[in-house]
């Protein structure tokens, strides 16, 4: 952690790139905003008489429970006081898991009357807290984030932050509101809190390898869990359980996982792409358990200066795996952020800067450590939502390109009116995507499907 301080204290230069970063909100985390000693704590923070920071957990899956655990593992006096989930079994198992370790359990103060179940559960949990953790499937994020900001709450929300353009626009509007209200918002794009990324990208921004003129970002892997349909489930119940395979909930794996690497491309470039084109499909994962999403996407993201960054993501078992990023600059390159020892190299093989990862530095913990430290000190330091939304939009734009097979511009994508969210949320309501008689869902066909 000690090596963060240099980064934090680094002054803003007049360099155009950094100026952009500042304006665009890209320098989130530790660099965007200085401490505001006069910051008034009037926005739901320190609402209790003592120093307790009260947390509501919205979305009690494995990641939500993990995030709550990380919040409870910070140095501050944090308590989880409310929990909400669509499913009671998920909520109760999360409650049980949070109570397994005595030192964590003593900070879990969630009696039955503060455990809320159902689609509206978040509305009951949010008012009870100073900080809300939003960790449901991403389709719900815009609605939940909007509500949290409306109620003047600080937020930790998992990536991605939406699954379609209307959702992104809601998050961007709420992000503006959060800024006005000086609400800290941390987004779980945890590479922004990971020491090696911070150190390496700071050097890249300072010009160590010149201007970035190309690169590739990857999430090629074997895929994730699948939840088979159970007898007696309603369609809504099934899609909610097997949420990874439905776009209104997940946004496809280019969004759900690969947003991390795409976000790194934006971070390194210091901007967002102006257009993209790509290809994708379902080659291996074609069964009815896999909903509508593709199993591979390859996208060229084009930035305003003409630079193209290639993105690859794939869910094939038994193939080469890589979750990483590489970039080339006019003076040098970085081949990997994923290894233990990272290095910026020039084209003669000379190391320009290297950084070895402390194996104990856990970015998932650091993001909470820094957020709760800021809250305890009454500081406004984190405004991650805008970048979270724009990097999510980049991934969604990639999906629009691979589904449609067309060139898609940023403006078209951001203004898309395609709204994937169901018109009604209840266990009996029908999502917009439904299976055919044989149980298969319609899948996008490039060249035919309208995806923007």
């Amino acid at each position: 952690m000690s090596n963060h301080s240099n980064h934090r204290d680094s002054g803003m230069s007049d360099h155009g790139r950094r100026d952009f970063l500042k304006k665009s909100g890209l320098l989130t985390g530790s660099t965007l905003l200085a401490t505001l000693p006069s910051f008034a704590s009037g926005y739901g923070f320190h609402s209790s008489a003592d120093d307790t920071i009260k947390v509501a957990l919205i979305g009690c899956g494995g990641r939500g429970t993990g995030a709550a655990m990380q919040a409870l593992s910070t140095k501050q006096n944090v308590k989880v006081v409310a929990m909400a989930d669509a499913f009671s079994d998920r909520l109760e198992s999360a409650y049980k898991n949070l109570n397994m370790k005595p030192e964590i359990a003593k900070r879990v103060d969630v009696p039955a009357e503060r455990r809320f179940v159902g689609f509206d559960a978040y509305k009951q949990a949010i008012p009870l807290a100073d900080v809300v953790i939003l960790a449901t499937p991403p389709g719900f994020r815009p609605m939940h984030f909007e509500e949290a900001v409306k109620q003047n709450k600080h937020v930790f929300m998992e990536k991605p932050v939406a699954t379609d353009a209307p959702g992104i626009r809601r998050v961007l509007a709420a992000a503006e509101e959060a800024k006005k209200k000086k609400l800290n918002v941390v987004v779980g794009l945890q590479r922004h809190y990971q020491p090696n990324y911070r150190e390496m990208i700071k050097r890249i921004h300072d010009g160590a390898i010149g201007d970035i003129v190309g690169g590739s970002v990857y999430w090629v892997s074997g895929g994730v869990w699948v939840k088979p349909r159970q007898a007696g489930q309603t369609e809504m119940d099934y899609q909610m359980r097997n949420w990874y395979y439905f776009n209104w909930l997940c946004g496809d794996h280019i969004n759900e996982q690969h947003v991390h690497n795409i976000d790194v491309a934006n971070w390194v470039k210091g901007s967002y792409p102006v257009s993209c084109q790509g290809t994708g499909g379902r080659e291996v994962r074609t069964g009815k358990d896999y909903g509508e999403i593709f199993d591979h996407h390859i996208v060229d993201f084009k930035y305003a200066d003409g630079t193209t960054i290639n993105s690859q993501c794939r869910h094939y078992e038994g193939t080469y795996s890589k979750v990483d990023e590489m970039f080339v600059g006019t003076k040098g390159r970085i081949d990997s952020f994923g290894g233990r020892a990272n290095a910026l190299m020039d084209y003669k093989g000379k190391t320009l800067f290297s950084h070895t990862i402390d194996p104990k530095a856990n970015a998932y913990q650091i993001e909470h450590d820094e957020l709760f430290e800021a809250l305890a000190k009454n500081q406004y330091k984190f405004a991650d939502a805008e970048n979270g939304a724009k990097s999510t939009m980049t991934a969604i734009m990639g999906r629009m390109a691979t589904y449609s097979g067309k060139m898609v511009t940023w403006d078209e994508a951001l203004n898309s009116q395609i709204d994937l969210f169901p018109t009604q949320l209840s266990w009996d309501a029908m999502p917009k995507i439904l299976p055919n008689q044989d149980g298969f869902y319609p899948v996008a066909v490039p060249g035919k499907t309208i995806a923007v």
Partner: protein
Amino acid sequence: MFKISFWGCLFFLLTGLVQAQTPELKSYTQDIPGSKLKYDLVAIPGGTFMMGSPATEKGRKADEGPQHSVKIEPFWMGKMEITWDLYDLFAFHNMEKEMAAQNPGFDLAKTDASTRPSPPYVDMSFGMGRAGYPAINMTQYAAIHFCAWLYAKTGIFYRLPTEAEWEYACRAGTKTAYSFGDDPKMMDQYGWNKSNSNGAYKQVGKKKPNPWGLHDMHGNVMEWTLDQYYPDYYAKKAKGTVKEPYAKVTVLYPNAVRGGSWDDDAVVARSASRIPSDPSWKILDPQTPKSEWWLTSASFVGFRVVRPLVKPSEEEIKAYYNPPLMEDY
């Protein structure tokens, strides 16, 4: 006459029976049914050896002593670390099915009941390579379930080595710090460590084997054993308080891991060196509860399997293959 031939027959019958039960201890290649994969096993004769290191050994730690005599029953040990090629067949049932479809003659039903790892969220090889490279990042629980799967596939009982078996096999009759002597400078010929790995594991079997023909015992990846790790285990055992040279696992951390890795200094790969597992090996797992199958942050830990000459009873096998599932927070 009648009497003699009756006893004679009985004698031959019994001898035949015993021979059928106790296979000959010689090195062999295990075919993996339903696939094209093979796994070489090296015969390790039984014997007695001094476990631990002398107080004078360079780089020695207190948990390696006092040296004490341990008797080892004969067994076979994997010539190489288990590679992703084989581990992926276990971890991904679809791959196993597809491989079996290309290699007919194996009844997949035998492995259908196997408990298998949940798919990892990120690539557990961390881009260091898969074909021919050692599988890593599995928990000890997962490594044991791999053995159970292998038993279902082959009918041969395989398990993790005990710490004592591991060190005995690593030493291969030697008493020096490494099986090739005391000079870590020779390590470059025998093992992968920080000084020659260039920051990643390597395909198995690329360095010289030890005197008994086992590769990568000094480095490449650390290897799981069956034992709980107690720093004072030898002190207790040497006093006679612990007779069995095997410490049954009762809590999740730490367990004993052996052999050093690509990410360690050579000294960690000495024959007697013991490494305790640590909760930080799952530090990157952002979920709660954490995966019982994947470590996520231990790209330096793999394993190889052993087969004891005398097959235990089905009851004992069941006990080996059903370690308690311990929650990990």
